Each structure stands twice: as structure tokens, then as C-alpha cells.
């Protein structure tokens, strides 16, 4: 360490190089380019692993039975079986199911995003007796799998004070109270975020005469924008993809959300004795249709999503 005190600007890696400045620069540049190429190759590798299942899904969704059984067909079908998609669209009853999914998953996500922010802020920035013990409860709620409570929740929502079976309240109301699907995780994320903000923010606002709720809504929430986006997207995605709770509370197919409709399509194909590969193309197409809205949403938000996550850091 002490060797370079006298020449602080020189990169330590180049210290021993006895070549001229120009050569040294070229060497560094070459090394730079080489490391870039290595990184690029690694990144492409990893990206390939990530994309593989989706590419397979897309390719199989466009195959008919002949292509699926043909060992010489690996990625590109001989005949593009677009009818898979129209079949899947009809079988899913896509449009109404899509609207239901958007309404309930979106509503639950909005409620959860706001309620968890409030609770997370409470845990991060106030000192009150029993706070740490209550926060242990958050962690506890986080690790209890929803499966452990489904029987009790079913009984709870079917009895008089609620009587919410066959309605969408069981998805929305717990979300409004900061519970719901992985609500505790979101509280945890918000708490970690707010905990990392400088205290001067509150001090300054307090001196200006703002109360705690004003500070929260006017100062803290705008600052939390990136986390809000992340939590919202997670919440939406998890509610969208959830099948456990809807399968408990809803029993009529015309109330089902998209992923549940997908199971209907599957069992319908099975009941027609179309085993083996027969229904595969249609099922793949239906699967794609179910996740397509999420992919489109992601395609539009990913720019903000990625940069927003980077700008703040979820946690400090």
C-alpha cells in the first residue's frame, strides 16, 4: 500500500509496466476489450438459460401433433399451427377472464402497495414499545406458508361476519390491511428502504411544521417511488399467478381468473381422451396467453423498473 503513496493516480495493475505511455495505454485497452468480450459471452450464456424455457414454450405452441412427434423438428415447426392460439383463446374465454384478472389482481396490488408502505414506514421510523416484537410477527407472517391457513381462512370467510365465498373480497380486503399474498414481505422491503433514508428529511419537515402523516405522504412516499413500482409489480404478478386462494373461494367457472381457466382447458383436453401430445400445442398456446399480459406489462415498465431499482437500492 505505502508504495503508491507518491504516485496516487497510476492504476496499481500498471505499476510494473516499463513500456512507454502509449504502449501501456494500448495494453490496457486490449485487456479492457478482452474483459468486455468475456463478460459479453457470459451474459449471453446466462441470458440463454433464462430464455430457453420461454423459447421452447413459444416453439411448441406453434406445433401441431405431427411436428411434436417428429424427432427431426426441434425448434421451428414445419407448418405454423396458428389455430392453436384461436383454440386456446376460445377455450380460455380469454377476454372476460382477462378483465376479471386485471380488476382483482390490479386492485389487490394497489391496495397492498399503499397499505404495506404505511406499515413499513411505521416500523422503520418510529420507536414505540413492543415494536421489535411486533416486527418479529411480520417475519413470522412471512414464513407461514399460505397453505397452512387455507382451511381456517375458508371457514372464516364462509361464516356470517363475512360470508364472502363466491365474491372477490377475500382477495381485496386482506390486502387493504397489509396482509394478503406476501404482504409481510412487502412490509419488510418497505421497512428496509425507509430505514436507509437520512433522518434529516424528517427533521427538516418537522421543523417546517409537518405532522407525521403529512411527512409520510408528501416527503417519504414520493421518495419511495422506485420501491413502490417494484412492490406493485411483484404484488400484481403474484396475485395474477395465484391459483390456491381463487380455487378455495370461487367455484363457478365464469368467475375464474386466467390461470384457473388454464386448468379447465387442461382437464377438458384430458377428458376428451386427447392424451399424449395431442393437446400440447393448444395448452402451450393457452399458457402463453395467460402470461402474455404480464410480459407486455413488463416490456413497458421494465425500463423504469430496472432504473428505479438501481437508483435507490431497495435496501441499505
Amino acid at each position, binding site marked *: 500500500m505505502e508504495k503508491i503513496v507518491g504516485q496516487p493516480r497510476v492504476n496499481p495493475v500498471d505499476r510494473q509496466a516499463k513500456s512507454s505511455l502509449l504502449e501501456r495505454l494500448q495494453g490496457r485497452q486490449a485487456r479492457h476489450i478482452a474483459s468486455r468480450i468475456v463478460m459479453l459471452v457470459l451474459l449471453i450464456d446466462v441470458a440463454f438459460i433464462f430464455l430457453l424455457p420461454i423459447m421452447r414454450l413459444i416453439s411448441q405452441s406453434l406445433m401441431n401433433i405431427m411436428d411434436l412427434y417428429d424427432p427431426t423438428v426441434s425448434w421451428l415447426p414445419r407448418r405454423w399451427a396458428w389455430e392453436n392460439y384461436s383454440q386456446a383463446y376460445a377455450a380460455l374465454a380469454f377476454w372476460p377472464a382477462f378483465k376479471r384478472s386485471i380488476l382483482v389482481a390490479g386492485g389487490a396490488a394497489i391496495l397492498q402497495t399503499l397499505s404495506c408502505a404505511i406499515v413499513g414506514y*411505521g416500523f422503520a421510523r418510529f420507536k414505540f414499545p413492543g415494536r421489535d416484537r411486533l416486527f418479529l410477527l411480520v417475519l413470522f407472517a412471512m414464513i407461514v406458508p399460505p397453505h397452512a391457513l387455507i*382451511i381456517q381462512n375458508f371457514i372464516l370467510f364462509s361464516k356470517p361476519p363475512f360470508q364472502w365465498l363466491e365474491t372477490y373480497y377475500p382477495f381485496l380486503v386482506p390486502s387493504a390491511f397489509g396482509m394478503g399474498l406476501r404482504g409481510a*414481505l412487502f412490509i419488510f422491503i418497505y421497512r428496509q428502504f425507509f430505514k436507509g433514508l437520512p433522518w434529516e428529511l424528517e427533521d427538516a419537515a418537522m421543523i417546517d411544521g409537518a405532522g407525521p402523516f403529512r411527512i409520510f405522504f408528501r416527503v417519504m412516499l414520493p421518495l419511495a417511488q422506485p420501491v413502490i413500482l417494484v412492490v406493485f409489480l411483484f404484488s400484481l404478478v403474484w396475485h395474477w399467478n395465484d*391459483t390456491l386462494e381463487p380455487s378455495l373461494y370461487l367455484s363457478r367457472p365464469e368467475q375464474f381468473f386466467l*390461470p384457473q381457466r388454464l386448468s379447465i382447458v387442461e382437464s377438458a383436453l384430458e377428458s376428451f381422451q386427447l392424451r399424449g401430445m395431442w393437446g400440447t400445442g393448444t395448452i402451450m398456446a393457452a399458457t402463453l396467453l395467460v402470461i402474455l399480459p404480464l410480459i407486455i406489462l413488463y416490456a413497458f415498465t421494465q425500463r423504469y423498473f430496472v432504473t428505479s431499482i438501481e437508483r435507490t437500492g431497495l*435496501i441499505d
Partner: protein
Amino acid sequence: MHLTLRRRNALNGYLFVAFWLFGLLIFFMIPLLQNFYLSFTDAQLTTIRDNSYKMIGIQNYIEAFSVDIEFVPYLIQTFTNLLTDVPIILAFSLAVAMLAIQNVPGSVLFRAIFFLPVVIGSSVVIGRMFDQFGNQLVLFRGQAAQEFLFVYLGDRMPLFMTFLSRSVFVLWRSGVQILIFIAGLKSIDPVLYEVAQVDGASSWNQFWKITLPMLSPVILINIIYTIIDSFTDYFNMVLRYIRVVTFNVTPNRLGYPSALGNIYFILVFILVILIFIVIGRMTFYRGERG
């Protein structure tokens, strides 16, 4: 009303968390306690409606460990999977995150791809995808590639294939972790690195002396997240087994699966608490104030 600053602070804190506490009580604590109670009974789907079930003490718990030949192996398998998966997922996601924040052409595209599993990876839909393709999901799908592998690996080939399909599966589950790591990496003050460079620290040293300590809260959150994710996962064998016992075995018993669920999450809870205590000591928060 005049309150001391400390009192007012405490009151405001309660105001912020009060409605959550209410929700927790109604939608979580009471069901949980009832579930606990149910695990000491012989309740079934048919007897729960007219309350004609009776207490049988810890019989269910004894059955789980002594009579049931499937539950304990599933439990052990789940925990061993976790022990191998968590370090792999963490190391992989940290590596990918560090790659992704480099300034490489197309880095935005790469980041977008890495987060794709976050959007679709948590779903039952993706479960279907993995169910459908099974081992074929891996790179070596073609006949020729498989024959080639068989010639070279012989008996070990199934093991290798399992490893490969498992690794794709593991990588697919690290989307959120990558995201959180990128967030953490970006939040480290670049001045720290500049100072270290001036002092002549190699990038190796910078990683161990700056990146890792500054990331410690993020590592904690990622470990916890990974554990929870795999414990509440669609593929989790214990949960699958509990589901089967509840819904697919007649008579549909409720008391016994409740007991299984309780054993399971008490173990998880102990594990998470241990991790919090051990790793929590090593983490470093910037904004801490007494």
C-alpha cells in the same frame, strides 16, 4: 394535550401500524391459533361442520413422526435441498448482478431478460412448463447429444441430467435475488471504490472489503427471501404432501394435515430466527439511529 417527544413518536408509530395489527389479528393470528387447536383434534371435512370432532392430544404429531413413512423423508429432503440451493442461488445471483451492472453493449437488454423470471417465474404456469418438459428442458435435448453424454458418462448420466435440470430450475428462481443485488450494488457509494483505488486496493480486495460488507443487509434479505420462496414454493414437496393428505385422501382429514403444517413451519421459523441472529450480527446499516 401535551406529550413528550418520545410519547408522541410512539403514538404516531402505533397509528401507522394499527390497521395492519387489526388485519393481522383477524386474517392471520386467529386462523393460526385455530389451526393450532385443530392439530390436536381428529377433525375431518365431514365432522368440522357439526363440530362432532374430539380432542386427541398430540396423537397427530406422534403419527407424523412414527407412523407416517412419507412425511419425515420429505421434510429432510426439503431441508437438504435448501442447504444446497441457497448458496448456489446467492452466489449465482450476485455474480449475475455484478455482470449486469457493467457497461457492456446491450446491458439493458440483459437486465430485462434476467428479470423475466420474476414476472412469470413465480407462477403455476411456469410450474406447468417445467412439468411438461421435465428433464428435456436442459440444453441436451437432441438424441445425438444424449448418446454422446451416455458414452462419456455412462451410469452417471441420469445424475448429470438431474443436476442440469435442477440447475436451470435453480437459476430460474434467482430473478428476485438478482434484482435485489443490483439494487444493493448500485446503492454503494462510488467514492468508496475511488478511495480504495487510490490506496491501491485490487478489485479482489475491493470486493471483499467494500462490496461484501456494504451488501450485507442485502445478503440477509436475499437469504431470507430465498428460504421463504422455497418453503412456500409450488414445487415444495412437504406442502404438496400436505395438500394431498388434505384433499386427495379420503376421509379428508383436517387435524392431521394441520399438525404436519405446524411441524413444518415451526422448523422453518427456527431456521429463519437462527439466520437472523447469526447474520444479523454481521450486517451493517447506514441510517441507524437509536
